């Protein structure tokens, strides 16, 4: 019981350096709230006039949108991923087209050269083969 008397029940330690009561009274007076029911009724009415224009739980636009945050994030990630894949495919096909167009413009010369070589080689081979077959 002695301990209970020593320590206040609200968890606050004993207040040894409290201000004088006269000083507290002066501060209290300086900060005194307006007196009279008229003032408080008026304040209540002003508060409620603002409340009337708000729905309960009508926080701000971002809190209204908050429940959609996670699905929106997942959807945005999926869209970016798909867009990335599609874009990569376009880039690949563009590169392929560019590559093909380069090949198309240069292939005939290369092919004709190689075909000439091949035909010469084949011709030589053919002559050799026909030589062996004929003998």
């Amino acid at each position: 019981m002695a301990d209970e008397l020593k320590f206040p029940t609200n968890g606050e330690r004993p207040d040894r350096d409290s201000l004088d009561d006269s000083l507290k009274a002066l501060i209290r007076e300086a900060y005194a709230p307006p007196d009279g029911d008229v003032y408080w009724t008026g304040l209540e009415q002003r508060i409620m006039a603002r409340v009337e224009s708000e729905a309960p739980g009508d926080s701000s636009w971002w809190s209204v949108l908050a429940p959609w945050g996670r699905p929106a994030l997942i959807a945005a990630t999926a869209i970016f991923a798909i867009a990335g894949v599609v874009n990569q495919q376009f880039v690949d096909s563009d590169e392929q087209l560019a590559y093909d167009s380069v090949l198309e413009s240069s292939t005939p010369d290369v092919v004709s050269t190689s075909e000439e070589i091949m035909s010469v080689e084949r011709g030589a081979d053919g002559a050799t083969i026909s030589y062996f077959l004929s003998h």
Partner: protein
Amino acid sequence: MRIPDEERALAEAARAGDRDAFAGLVRLHQRRAYLVARAIVTVHEDAEDAVQEGFVRAWQAIERFDPNQGFGAWVNRIVANAALDITRRRKVRSTEELSDALQSPFRDPAQDAELKSRLSEALAQLPERARSVIVMHDVEGFTHVEIGEMLGIPGGTARSDLHHARQKLRTLLKDLRG
């Protein structure tokens, strides 16, 4: 914490969207909320703005209010935040202006004018948070923990601020108290 039945019923009805019930909560708590705001912003008009803003924010967030906690403590924290927002917006305020504000308009200027004037000047010289803590604790009777919750600081910091604010106030008023 024991919550009065009337307050719990009003809070539950307000959560369900009943504006009349919310008006009942305003009626019950607006004075205390005003004192909290006034301790932070000092000026009556700013305190009134903070109270209005705080209650509107409370209504907007009423669905998130837990009726098992006290509505007063909850709304006081919101009002304190609204008051702190105002002080941030009006950070630059001269000592002279503050001193004038403390003398207006709800003080009785009849007696001991010099002491009151010196007190106003001394309070105006205290750092903003120290002044809030001293008014909340020594005048309004809030605990360090409650003050810490309202001002967003640890209870131990509120206690320390209070100690230093009292020391400074005593020093500033030393020659008047002898």
